[in-house]
């Protein structure tokens, strides 16, 4: 052997090093479903509403839009969204502008990061412009819609009026007219939530019984009957407990922090009234409670909820929650929470029964939101229900970030795969952003 031969052998070994690992990627298959024409019926989350408003960016990142994207891997077609103009800032349900994270100066002059409206008002033209000429739409998510609203002809919700086919159509009739081959329904949240968001001080819970348009059961049955009338397969979701949501968990019932002097002063002030004793450190807020005889206020107890929209400056600088009880509309008492949760539980039994009876895929959104509240890790990232930092809830504390929506879409995919023998891949939720930081 010569030195040259030796060299050739060495070189040959070197060339062998281009060895790239290969994977047999499992094939995506639709199983029993025909994904070619997918229609999503629902409310705010389905529409993509987030950060307190509906606008173009959030519409592209609804769980329904993300699910539609994954369905394209198994023959899904175009997913038409009643888009707000990309140039518009969008609008919320109080004609407000969306929020973003920014510096806020409180009444004490302290600056901290928090949700800030990007304009004093939302874009009113969103409501005045009907975009049905871009339809008919696959995304039939209508912010604030209840189950009992879905069948109402000429439904006066401005989010529906901007996309309705006519002045006398209903959300359900428009959805049915789209002839879905596959549908998702995530409805019923607002039947309980609208009441909860008012601090149970106004509005009411949708009763279970009653005719279509009045009772939960008859209305949801009509919705599912009509969507599945032509044999379409579908997926329906249940309703999360309000206890899971950031909106009700961010301000603790006992976040009244007192020093020794303030505690003594408050105790002596209340000694003549209801005898509430205050201590140095954390104390329950004083809240209005009309059920409390004579006084109409009392101290909050563990398990009661303070709403995210309570004016924090009033607490910090105007003695709200201490000398001045927090108004009823900003808190939920234990009995109010019980009535709301009882309603949600009843709705969820009905939703589950319909799924079973119709052979539809069923997404346990309630269980999933509870899992988020407990917190878990997803691909090395902590996901939880903490406001802003949890990555799940958008700045309105109720609706989700794009990342939250992607995680929710994956729950739909798992349910569909289980029910219909499909192998739709989940999406990598970390490709979707959470709350945007300045």
């Amino acid at each position, binding site marked *: 052997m010569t030195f040259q031969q030796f060299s050739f052998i*060495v070189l040959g070994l070197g060339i062998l090093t281009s060895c790239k690992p290969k994977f047999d990627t499992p094939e995506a298959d639709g199983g029993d479903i025909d994904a070619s024409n997918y229609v999503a019926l629902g409310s705010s989350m389905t529409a993509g509403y987030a950060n307190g408003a509906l606008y173009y960016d959030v519409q592209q990142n609804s769980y329904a839009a993300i699910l539609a994207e994954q369905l394209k891997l198994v023959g899904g077609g175009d997913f038409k969204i009643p888009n707000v103009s990309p140039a518009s800032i969008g609008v919320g349900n109080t004609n407000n502008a969306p929020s973003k994270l920014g510096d806020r100066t409180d009444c004490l002059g302290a600056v901290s990061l928090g949700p800030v409206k990007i304009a004093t008002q939302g874009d009113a033209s969103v409501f005045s412009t009907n975009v049905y000429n871009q339809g008919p739409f696959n995304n039939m998510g209508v912010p604030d819609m209840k189950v009992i609203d879905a069948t109402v002809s000429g439904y006066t919700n401005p989010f529906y009026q901007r996309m309705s086919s006519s002045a006398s159509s209903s959300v359900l009739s428009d959805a049915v007219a789209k002839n879905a081959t596959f549908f998702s329904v995530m409805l019923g949240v607002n039947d309980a939530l609208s009441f909860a968001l008012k601090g149970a001080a106004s509005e009411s819970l949708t009763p279970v019984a009653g005719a279509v348009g009045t009772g939960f059961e008859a209305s949801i049955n009509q919705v599912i009957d009509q969507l599945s009338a032509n044999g379409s397969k579908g997926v329906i979701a249940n309703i999360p407990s309000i206890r899971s949501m950031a909106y009700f968990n961010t301000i603790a019932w006992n976040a009244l922090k007192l020093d020794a002097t303030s505690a003594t002063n408050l105790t002596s002030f209340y000694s003549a009234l209801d005898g509430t004793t205050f201590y140095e450190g954390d104390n329950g807020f004083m809240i209005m409670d009309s059920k409390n005889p004579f006084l109409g206020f009392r101290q909050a107890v563990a398990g009661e909820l303070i709403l995210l929209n309570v004016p924090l400056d009033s607490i910090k600088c105007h003695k709200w929650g201490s000398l001045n009880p927090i108004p009823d509309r900003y808190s939920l008492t234990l009995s109010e929470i019980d009535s709301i949760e009882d309603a949600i539980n009843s709705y969820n039994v009905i939703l589950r029964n319909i799924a079973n009876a119709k052979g539809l895929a069923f997404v346990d959104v309630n269980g999933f939101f509870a899992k988020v509240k407990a917190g878990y890790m997803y*691909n090395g990232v902590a996901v939880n229900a903490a406001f802003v930092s949890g990555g799940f809830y958008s700045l309105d504390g109720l609706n989700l970030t794009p990342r939250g929506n992607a995680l929710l879409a994956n729950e739909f995919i798992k349910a569909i795969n289980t029910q219909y023998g499909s192998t739709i891949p989940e999406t*990598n939720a970390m490709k979707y952003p959470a709350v945007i930081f300045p």
Partner: protein
Amino acid sequence: MSSLYKIIILIIMVSPVRDYAQGFQVNLQGQKQQGMGGAGTAFMQDASSLFFNPGGASFVHGTQFNLGVTPTFARGAFMDDKTHEVSRTNSPVSTPFAAYGMFELKDSSKLKLGLAVYTPFGSTVQWEDNWTGRFALTRLELRAIFIQPTVSYKLTKNLGIGAGFVYATGKVNLQKDIPLVDANGNYGHAELSGKAHGYGFNVGVYFKPIEKLSIGLTYRSKVNMAVNDGQANFDVPEGVSANFPDGKFKSKLPLPSVLSLGMAYKANSKLDFALDINYVGWKAYDTLSFDYENNTASLIDTKSARMYKNTFAFRGGAQYKVTEHFAARLGLAYGITPVQDGYVTPETPDANRVNYTAGIGYEIGKHLKLDASFLFTHLERSGTNKETNLSGTFKTNVCAPGISIGYKF
């Protein structure tokens, strides 16, 4: 010499500059041993005995030098089992090297002094941008260089003992993305880097009861690599930069002990067999912790369970002298992974492995020896990490061609 240099350069150039060295133990010392599956505790061939068995070094004749390098090309990939997304590594080539010098004192052929400098641990893994596990790890660079002055003494014509002191110096650089995003879609990034050092020893006994058979027993101690003055740098959206202050950190990484028992058998004047069993004390690596000097609500000290277990490796090989100047070698090794199910990470997606090795040796005259070796191994591991919930299959192909030059006086 210039031809040899060209060959080394060529190897580096023709091979894809993508490397992914799995695990961080690198058993790439001595080209002769590499050709034989990495066995060498009882088979004394040259100055590399300083590493393989200090007790046997005294049985190697004369004063010798050996210098070898083993460019390691490893290509890794990960398939997420829920999204079926495949991510790949594009790491730089790592170049474990070994240099051995062994000196025979003029007045005593029984005593040998030696110095070995080698890289028993180290790798660089660089995952592609925006990969699935980016918030767990994007890059890990580990490098440890051991400097080992050694004494070997031949007690009788059958028995030798030896001991070396190990000074280890190294560096670590760990990077990952932080899941905080700004309005331009840029995610945060963390980079932890620092120098590490530690101490240890390498002792061995070599016993040659008959001409055809030899037995070796060695123990290389654990070396605790301590990072005392690491630098942590964070790049996050400006609005939260106060939560992620740059600053110092402390960490440590234990490099495990290795207990080896070896046997070598000379079948005839042309054919040699060698067999090693390694017991590696990986249990020392139970936690990876980072202690930051400036803690904030967002930046807390971390302790991640690694829970490695002690493990065995079996190595065997044969050498056949085709001619007086030319030797061919073949070997096989089987390593049991120290990483338990649920603890597989993108930094070391380790698995049980079979190493296939081959090598050749060529003598140019009386003094100069060239050796080349080649190693291939494939690793595959599926599972869900208990800490990150990253779930899928890691695959890695490793090819390590190496070359060394030896000079014997």
